[in-house]
């Protein structure tokens, strides 16, 4: 069997694949966080809970209404996005004038409510969610076997990330959004409905998280706490990438995912903390983050 640095290659590729998949979720979630933060100046602590809600929406749609994966992929983000719109309208919008830390605390409270309620209703144990028939099985890539669903997740997340990036960089709506990020008052003076833009942005960010949740459901089990542990890692990813750049959030997400996978191969004990260590190093060397700019 061939080896690289004393590690059998199949194990290496396997971990890189797992890293890519984790990275896909880091990228999608940090992307949503960055979009929300860019405009609203709110760190959305409920992002993990919204990801969990997405996965649960898919699970509940299937078990109670018999609605399958493909439709859930569209419906779950819409449902969670709608909930997020209500949250923004009724609560978050009251906090725009005060210290951004209050936005963090509010969304933290919301995350606790959502997670606590779902744990109360469904218990802490994970619920299995089968991947759709079309995506079961594995293909031989020549150097390794890859479960089709995992390949699909990596591709789907790339499409989502690039799509969001194009939406923000290349469309008129995105131009408004970027302009409002720079100077909301001026954009409003030009006749753009900035409050609506804020609401839509929060809805979009939450919908992205929910989409990630549906994609994650067949890989990780659907459980009330699936988001809260992930969100802290995503925070670290965001700090490493720097909040300023959408592309930075995406690239950093994949990069750190793969790096974490590699750590699992070469030094497994450190795999759960490697991202935090990198965050600390980046902060010492380049406090604004790899792609960030000093504010």
């Amino acid at each position, binding site marked *: 069997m061939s080896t690289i640095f004393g590690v059998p290659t199949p194990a290496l590729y396997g971990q890189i694949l797992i890293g890519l998949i984790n990275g896909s979720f880091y990228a999608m979630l940090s992307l949503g966080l960055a979009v929300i933060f860019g405009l609203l100046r709110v*760190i959305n602590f409920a992002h993990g809970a919204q990801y969990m809600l997405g996965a649960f929406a898919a699970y509940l749609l299937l078990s109670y209404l018999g609605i399958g994966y493909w439709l859930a992929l569209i419906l779950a983000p819409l449902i969670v996005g709608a909930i997020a719109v209500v949250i923004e309208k009724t609560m978050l919008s009251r906090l725009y004038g005060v*210290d951004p*830390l*209050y936005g963090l*605390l509010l969304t933290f409270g919301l995350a606790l409510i959502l997670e606590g309620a779902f744990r109360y209703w469904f218990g802490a144990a994970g619920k299995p969610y089968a991947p759709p028939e079309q995506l079961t099985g594995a293909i031989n890539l020549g150097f390794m076997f890859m479960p089709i669903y995992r390949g699909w997740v990596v591709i789907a997340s790339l499409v989502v990330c690039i799509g969001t990036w194009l939406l923000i960089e290349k469309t008129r709506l995105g131009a408004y959004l970027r302009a409002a990020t720079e100077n909301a008052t001026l954009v409003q003076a030009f006749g753009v409905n900035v409050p609506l833009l804020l609401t839509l942005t929060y809805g979009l960010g939450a919908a992205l998280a929910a989409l990630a949740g549906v994609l994650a459901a067949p890989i990780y089990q659907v459980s009330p706490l699936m988001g809260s542990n992930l969100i802290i*890692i995503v925070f670290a990813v*965001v700090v490493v990438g720097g909040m300023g750049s959408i592309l930075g959030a995406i690239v950093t997400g994949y990069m750190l995912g793969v790096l974490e996978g590699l750590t699992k191969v070469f030094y497994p004990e450190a795999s759960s903390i490697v991202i*935090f260590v990198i965050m600390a190093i980046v*902060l010492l060397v380049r406090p604004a983050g790899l792609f960030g700019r000093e504010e």
Partner: protein
Amino acid sequence: MAVGTQYLAEQPKLRTSSLVLGAIAIAAMLAAPFFFYPVMLMSVLCFALFACAFNLLIGYVGLLSFGHAAFFGGAAYFTAHAAKVWGWDPLAAILLGVAGAAVMGLIIGFVAIRRQGIYFAMITLALSQMFAFICLQAPFTHGEDGIQGVPRGYLLGFIDLNQPLTMYYVTLAIFLFGFFAIWRIVNSPFGNILKAIRENEKRAVSLGYRVDRYKLGAFVMSAALAGMAGGTKAIVFQFATLTDVQWQMSGEVILMTLLGGIGTMVGPIVGAGLVIALQNYLAASDFPVTVLIGIIFVICVLLFRRGIVGEILELMRRKGKSAS
């Protein structure tokens, strides 16, 4: 507007009225174990000290640490290990916890103060989560089981802490010591510079203060005092587990401080008392505590950001204004 700014009206100087109030409060605390369950009171005292230590940072420097559980829980581990495995005197064990938390505060603070505001919160959260992972894997913490059966021992070799009442008074003494230390820090020239940094960091820099050093100093003090609370808790409850180092604990101490009043001296104590009482009350029912904590968070942030004590002080201030 920075968090806590609204309390710039500086802390009242040591006036006769506050001395009298303080004396009444201490008398009440001395008498309390004859009316309430001592274990719950000790729990309140530990968490009140923890919240006061946390408040030193958010209330007087304007830094929201989302990772204070690392110092609280870390110190609990150090103290528990020293008392159980090395057989140290409880006071020495607690001091080790304080020292350990201070060193951790120095390391985490050194990294975290490079960013401000919301980033500071995220960085402290991430670093404390890293510490929680280390605690999960390190052999001396015993993973999921934690360190159980920590002996309370004999304070200074002759004061038997296994007596609930004795343990209570020792805890009270530690709490009062910590509280007084925080009061001294806040009302010192050092504390005034901290408040200046909170109000306008750039101006403090332009006045020639090395802001980073002051922030780091405050961070280490806050961590050490949180460690004092954690170490004491380990002796009182005779265990140290992962619960104390996890992010939920950081969230709880934020809630206590927010509910009582950020930037007020007694607010965190009130908040800690309420949250602990609520948790004890709910422990009997099957209503999920997390949900209630979340609801209180949302209500506090939306309706009374000054907290209970902060709102009362504000009300008194307004009344005083309209009277004069």
